[in-house]
Every structure is written in structure tokens, then in C-alpha cells.
């Protein structure tokens, strides 16, 4: 299951969807809205996507993960729109026969998603200001060249 949604993510449903008899390990990663960023207090985040490309890139990274690890089942849901503190912005669920590959695959999927999937977040700070988050505009960024092509 690969999905973009404006609704709260059904994390239990996503987890259940990857549970299979062939899999002895299920890893669920949740990204949630944090209150502090670089010493500034965040009150909310707004997420925007280029939906067609975001979905295509998520399918691509799932396919890449499937070539590297023996994934039994896998699902990614990313939420868009206005999210409050504590809301789940992204959920990645992976099942594999064994735990080591499940952890590694989940780590790869969330790391690569953050590098290449065209989704952006805008911070809403408690002083009323907002700011788009653009990794690499002010520092070096690491990206997977292969997935950028």
C-alpha cells in the first residue's frame, strides 16, 4: 500500500496489512510532528506534495528495497495538509522473515523517502512566522544519485 492522504493515518491498519505468515518480523516507523526545531518552538507543520511524482518515487524506492532485502510486504502512507503537534506525518511498515532485514529495509525506506520523494513541509513557529524546510539550501545535503535519476 502506497498512499498520500489528507486524513489521519490508520497506523494499525497499515501494520496489519503487512502481517503475513511468511514474515517473522514487522517493523513500523512513524514520523511525528515534533515541538522543537533548532531551538525554535513549532506549533504545526503544513505538508505539500507533487502527488503523481511522489507516488511514483515511493513505488520506486519500495522496488529498490525489494531488490536489496527479502521483503514479504511493505506499505508507506504520507499525510499532507495541516498537522498539529504529535500527529503522524508518515508511516512505513515492513515485514520480512527476520528482524535484521526488516529494520534495515525500514531504515532505507524512510531515509530515501526523505531524500527523493517530492514532499515539502513548512514550519509554523509559535511567534507566528512560517518557514519552508529545504535541506541543503544552507548546508551540504546527501542524496542518492541513482534515485534522483
Amino acid at each position: 500500500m502506497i498512499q498520500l492522504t489528507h486524513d489521519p493515518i490508520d497506523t494499525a491498519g497499515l501494520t496489519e496489512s503487512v502481517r503475513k505468515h511468511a514474515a517473522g518480523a514487522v517493523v513500523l516507523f512513524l514520523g511525528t510532528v515534533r515541538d522543537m526545531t533548532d531551538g525554535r518552538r513549532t506549533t504545526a507543520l503544513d505538508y505539500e506534495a507533487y502527488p503523481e511524482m511522489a507516488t511514483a518515487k515511493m513505488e520506486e524506492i519500495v522496488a529498490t528495497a525489494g531488490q536489496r532485502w527479502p521483503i514479504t510486504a511493505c506499505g508507506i502512507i504520507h499525510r499532507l495538509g495541516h498537522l498539529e503537534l504529535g500527529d503522524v506525518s508518515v508511516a512505513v511498515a515492513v515485514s520480512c522473515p527476520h528482524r535484521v532485514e526488516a529494520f534495515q529495509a525500514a531504515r532505507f525506506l524512510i531515509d530515501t523517502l526523505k531524500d527523493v520523494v517530492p514532499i515539502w513541509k513548512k514550519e509554523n513557529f509559535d511567534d507566528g512566522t512560517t518557514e519552508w524546510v529545504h535541506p541543503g539550501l544552507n548546508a551540504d545535503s546527501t542524496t542518492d544519485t541513482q534515485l534522483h535519476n
Partner: protein
Amino acid sequence: MKLAVQLFAHARELAGQDQVDLELDEGACVADVRQALADQVPQLLPLTQRLLFAVGTRYADDHVTLGPDDSIACFPPVSGG
């Protein structure tokens, strides 16, 4: 040829529009789009050198040549998750 470039996130906000129409020579490449955008939409200047481009649903570097039917998107570095 006429090309429409879709803008997203900070690029869309700075430009004040979600699409920019450009007139470029046949055989133009992504670098030409980057330059034309900078000329036509100077508000994008703070981002210009870091803007990413996609043709269809694939990232495209400055050397990729474009056709009139290509769907082109332009956006800043991504920050999902």
C-alpha cells in the same frame, strides 16, 4: 515552443503562481528553463541555483532536453517525512 512549468512549495509561494508559461527554442534543455525562470520570475532568485526539475515523474538534470509535450515541474529540495 511553449512550455508550462509547474511550481511547488516555496517556489510556488515565491512566484505567487503554481504555473509559469515559458517560450523557449526547440531543443531547449533544463538549464534553459532554469535561466528563463530566473529572468521571468525574479522572485525565485533566492532558490534559483538549488531548484530541482522533473520531467514527467523523473528528476531531470540541466542537460536533459525537452519537447513541447513534456510535463515539467520545478521545486526546492524536498523535506517530507
